């Protein structure tokens, strides 16, 4: 392929992409606003901590070693010593499937109604994928694996574990009830905490 042919292909891209790029915001200003908002939130949280907790509690909060309360909704992937602390309202709404060295966390009822053709489609909430090489977060990006939404979990001497978000619609688009339930859970994925060998992963 030559550059002109590639440009012609780019010229035939999805209209929606072109329309979206027609008027782009000033991202720098947007980032600045978000950073300010985050800083204010963090400052407020910090002030609250200082006022509310004793010095001992504050010291404990700095510790990275955690114990998972028994009543918490969790998934434990014993082979890799990884524990996921899930939102409480996920109880009874998810299943885990092992696929090679990878794990698929999905909503069984939504998956059932989706008419899944492959293991990686239908009701998928997220995947935990094992890459057969040890990568730091920056190397993961440099190697070009960050094509879809992801969360870097941890790496060992020869492997890297990444949480990937599905890129396609995972529910039956004709079923609004499924859509609401899926989107509700999807929003909460960010709240999941990961513990490797009792150490909390950021």
């Amino acid at each position, binding site marked *: 392929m*030559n*550059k002109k*042919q590639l440009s012609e292909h780019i*010229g*035939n*891209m999805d209209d929606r992409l*072109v329309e979206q790029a027609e008027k782009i915001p*000033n991202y720098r200003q947007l980032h600045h606003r978000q950073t300010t908002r985050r800083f204010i939130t963090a400052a407020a949280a910090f002030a609250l901590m200082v006022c509310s907790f004793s010095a001992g509690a504050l010291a404990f909060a700095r510790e990275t070693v955690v114990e998972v309360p028994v009543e918490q909704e969790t998934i434990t992937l014993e082979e890799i010593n990884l524990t996921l602390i899930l939102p409480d309202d996920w109880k009874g709404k998810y299943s885990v499937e092992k696929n090679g060295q990878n794990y698929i966390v999905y909503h069984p009822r939504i998956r059932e109604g989706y008419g899944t053709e492959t293991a990686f489609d239908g009701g998928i909430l997220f995947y935990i994928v094992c890459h057969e090489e040890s990568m730091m977060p920056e190397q993961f990006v440099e190697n070009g694996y960050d094509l879809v939404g992801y969360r870097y979990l941890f790496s060992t001497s020869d492997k890297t574990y990444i949480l990937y978000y599905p890129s396609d619609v995972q529910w039956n688009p004709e079923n609004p009830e499924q859509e609401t339930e899926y989107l509700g859970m999807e929003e909460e994925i960010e709240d999941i905490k990961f513990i490797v060998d009792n150490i909390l992963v950021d």
Partner: protein
Amino acid sequence: MSRIVRNLALKKYEYISAAKRNPAAVTSLEELGDCVSGTDSIGTEMEKRHIEKTIDKFLWRLEEEKRNVFIRRYWYFDSIETICKYTGFSQSKVKSMLYEMRRKLKKYLESEGIKV
């Protein structure tokens, strides 16, 4: 309408580049050379459609701001300066974003079995 204008501009690439009438379009086309081997390929309509769908898929998976910077540069043929003006980003940031996306696009096309 803008699509027609773009394609006409592209058809006149040789004319544009020879006369240096639209330097931004010329340099943006030159940059795309990073993603391809440079050899002419004759593909069927179905193959062309596959390439276009793959490019769409690649773009939809990018973060919104990166995607829009890419489209402004390679669809609208905006200059780096214009993109900086719109986005508020520095020139070096825009250039490195574009470089990174061209590299990823090449990798992605290859991973989808497309001979670049």
